[in-house]
């Protein structure tokens, strides 16, 4: 979750675009949410869930790439590097682990990350929409800065589980891999690449999680009041 977007001296086109973007994303993830609820109501199992929501997930999660452009062009005040890392990690999981590896679709990590991502994104895009419109109901702020405490670990666990479940099928199929000999004199074993991403979760999760707690304190006004300026 990046810093709240602020509209400084915004061009009206930029503002209009951002409002449309965030409204569309809120709607998209709501549709995914309804799809999840509907699936569980009808089938009472996580099996088949991914296939049910696949098209919407691929579309709306990939659309998040726009947020990198927003940060890069400055129409949203967010750190470009941070935004890029977050978006790429989501897009990476979706296109690199889930979509291409059918054996992962019915594993337990999928409903975990789907629930975590869906709730998180609905609230996040709703929050941005309200910020752009000028008034943000406290409940939205509270939800955004409180649900992460449960959803973030849930989502990360779902992702790690999905990566783990993809390892054997990836190794067996040798997908996305290049072996010697070849004319590029280069090799890449996708199975090893996936294993290589796992430590990064453990490195970054604590930092990001506790950073969110700090953000929460600021956003909900829970910290000590700022000290008055010292006069000498």
């Amino acid at each position, binding site marked *: 979750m990046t810093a709240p977007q602020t509209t400084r001296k915004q061009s009206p086109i930029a503002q209009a675009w951002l409002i449309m973007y965030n409204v569309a994303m809120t709607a998209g993830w709501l549709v995914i949410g309804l799809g999840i609820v509907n699936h569980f109501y009808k089938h009472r199992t996580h099996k088949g869930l991914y296939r049910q929501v696949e098209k919407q997930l691929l579309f709306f999660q990939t659309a998040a790439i726009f947020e990198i452009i927003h940060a890069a062009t400055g129409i949203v005040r967010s750190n470009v590097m941070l935004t890029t890392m977050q978006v790429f990690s989501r897009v990476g999981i979706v296109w690199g682990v889930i979509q291409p590896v059918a054996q992962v679709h019915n594993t337990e990590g999928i409903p975990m990350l789907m629930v975590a991502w869906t709730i998180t994104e609905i609230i996040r895009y709703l929050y941005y929409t309200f910020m752009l419109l000028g008034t943000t109901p406290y409940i939205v702020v509270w939800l955004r800065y409180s649900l992460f405490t449960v959803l973030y670990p849930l989502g990360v666990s779902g992702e790690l589980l999905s990566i783990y479940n993809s390892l054997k099928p990836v190794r067996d199929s040798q997908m996305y891999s290049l072996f*010697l*000999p*070849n*004319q*590029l*004199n*280069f*090799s890449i074993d996708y199975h090893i690449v996936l294993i290589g991403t796992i430590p990064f979760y453990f490195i970054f999760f604590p930092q990001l999680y506790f950073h969110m707690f700090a953000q929460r304190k600021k956003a909900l006004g829970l910290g000590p009041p700022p000290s008055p300026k010292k006069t000498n």
Partner: protein
Amino acid sequence: MELQILDSKTKQKLCTLERISSNTTIDSIKEIYQRKFPNYYPERQSFKSSPKGKLLKGSETLSELNLGAEGVLYFKDLGPQVGWSTVFYCEYTGPLFVYLLFYFRLPYIYDSKFAFTSSPDDVVHLAAICHSFHYMKRVLETKFVHRFSHGTMPIKNLFRNCSYYWSFAAWMAYYINHPLYTPATFGTMQICSGLAVFVLCELGNLSIHLAFRSLRPSGSTQRKIPTATGNPFTLLFNFVSCPNYTYEFGSWVGFAVMTQTLPVFIFAFVGFGQMAIWALAKHRNYKKEFSNYPRSRKAILPIVL
């Protein structure tokens, strides 16, 4: 005058220096400070006249800074420092050794049946010579050619730089010396042209380094506009501010074509990216410093960048 030294971050008073004359330089302040705090050798000290101001130059005097009768200077610890030469020696000798580990196919790198074997392809031996020559040249230039305008850099740069050079050397060496290495698709013609580009660019790079050295008198940090000398390789100065980087990129492209190895291309482009950043900054500084700087010159790539 009396000089108070405060920490630039915490604003706490670190010490007071008494009876300092107003024509004392920052360099002298650093020596005095070291006598009070022996752990802080001058290279890791930095002073500013305001907490968020610029670092003060060693040659500036207190009177130039307008500190008033009760002066305050802000101190920042730059952290443990290491000399530029030291860093260069470490980062350049590493690749020499690392590459040879793979060239000689030490055990446990490749399949055990290939341990200590030799490649049948001539280009693999040529590559080992070129790679070793490149880094040997760098080591010798560090000893005999380069004149550094800064004495030291923070020690974490040593680890970062060595990781970069040593890892890339290992990555390239692994594939070039692999038992399953595939020589150039276009055969001898490709290998020879790659080699020719490599050799010419190595000579070019050396020529530029020598030209830079003769530009700056020994012991000084004076800067002048670089221009072409009698050496034809230096004619590239007419087109770019940092032809040494241009030639360096050229060397690695030549080496990449010669060995037809993707990791070498990647190394060439990553290196180019970093050198482009440095070249653009140097180019900007030249233009700021010299009002008569040739306007048709680019930073690193003739006409283009």
